[in-house]
């Protein structure tokens, strides 16, 4: 094993890590917000809105992310309306296109996960809240959202890990994140295995950290399921 090469590869790859993290966090943030909107439409009970949400989820979950990303990156610029609009300076940027398509795609998956969480809210809790006069946003904020989020958390952490892996596709629209840099190193040095091991290690550590953080969040959100005092064990 050539440790000098491994460590220089690792340094090069870690320099690309901020790009990966920016892609990841922005797309999780925007994707999450969009997912909330889609979920709200899906469960709204208004046929037009829920139909739109259904179609959205079908399209973005049913086709590969890569084709969505290319559609945004190459396809949008084809239209004069977009090319000459105020949006063009943003949409010309590969980074913006990558985040946009990652967020659009994850919103489809996340909306389904959130909907699953909402369906898991026991009807009696909603009835209880209604019987004490809660309704509308207060009901959502105090009862539905917290319970739904907690139920959705395990599936949502899987989706977040999948998103971390999906950021790799941004390299195909010329955003130089970890996988893109790894590919460049492979074609320069032909030392596939070493570069792969370094890049894989970075992703595995990131996934591990994400899953730990999500476990911690799940733990802190389920205080009511733990015994009253930590010292007392039944």
């Amino acid at each position, binding site marked *: 094993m050539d440790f000098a090469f491994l460590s220089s590869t690792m340094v090069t790859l870690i320099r690309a890590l901020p790009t990966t993290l920016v892609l990841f966090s922005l797309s999780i943030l925007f994707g999450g917000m969009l997912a909330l909107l889609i979920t709200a439409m899906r469960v709204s009970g208004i046929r037009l809105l829920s139909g739109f949400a259904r179609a959205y989820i*079908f*399209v973005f979950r*049913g*086709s*590969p*992310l*890569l*084709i*969505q990303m*290319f*559609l945004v990156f*190459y*396809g*949008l*610029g*084809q*239209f004069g309306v977009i090319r000459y609009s105020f949006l063009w300076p943003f949409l010309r940027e590969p980074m913006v296109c990558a985040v946009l398509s990652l967020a659009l795609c994850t919103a489809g998956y996340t909306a389904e996960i959130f909907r699953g969480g909402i369906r898991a809210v026991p009807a009696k809790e909603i009835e209880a809240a209604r019987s004490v006069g809660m309704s509308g946003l207060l009901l959502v904020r105090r009862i539905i959202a917290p319970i739904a989020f907690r139920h959705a958390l395990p599936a949502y952490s899987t989706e977040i*890990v999948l998103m971390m*892996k*999906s*950021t*790799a*596709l941004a*390299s*195909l629209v010329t955003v130089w994140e970890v*996988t893109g840099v*790894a*590919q460049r190193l*492979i*074609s320069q040095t*032909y030392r*596939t*295995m070493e570069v*792969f091991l370094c*890049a*894989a290690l970075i*992703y*595995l550590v990131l*996934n591990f950290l994400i899953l730990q953080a999500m476990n911690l969040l799940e733990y802190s959100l389920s205080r009511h399921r733990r015994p009253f005092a930590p010292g007392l064990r039944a």
Partner: protein
Amino acid sequence: MMLFELLGLGGKGWGAFLLLATATTLAVTATALAIGAVAGAAIAAAKLSASVPLRLLGHVYTTVFRGVPELLIIYLIYFGGSSGLTAVGQWLGYDGFLGLPSFAAGALAVGIISGAYQAEVFRGAFHAIPRGELEAAMAIGMPRRLRFRRIIVPQVLRFAIPGLGNVWQLSLKDSALVSVTGLVELMRASQIASGSTRQYFLFYIVGGALYLILTSLSDRVFNTAERRANRSMSASTIGGA
């Protein structure tokens, strides 16, 4: 009309090209699923075995191939496979560069990834077999292999159908990444068609629509398969009562 000319099946149309590429996508995915089934069964067996090193191996396999970006694994197999093949060629006295065919590299890469997911599916399906049935088979003196063939395999396959459907959909979408190796499957074909006509939007929409058709059709196939496989079971057994 320009649209029909561009998408037409004959002459200057790209229709036939895209349909052929759709068939390639299906072929890559099917091959990958078959490779993944073999790998997945082996890894599931390793994860369920009593031996600690085997369990560890299974755990490492599923963690790595589910946790690392698919693109990176495709690069590993495509570039790594080619340099491996060239090394073998040199050893046999051939001096040139030997490339791994992109179909083989793509199917192998997607297969290895789907193997990691299939291993989890098979493992879950194995755990869904009622313990009593295995005990009953042991009690009447069925040997290990016969037990495997008569009790375990038929039920694992039945319980695994929904999970395998998910893995198929996943692999179908992963197969789009194989386009980086130059294999002309649906993704690469959309790229070529849009690049040479400068109709990017049109061809990516058409490509995306073809993927949607593939995923929704295969959803139906797996639903039908699941219904048929469960025909012999009463509703109460499936309901887990």
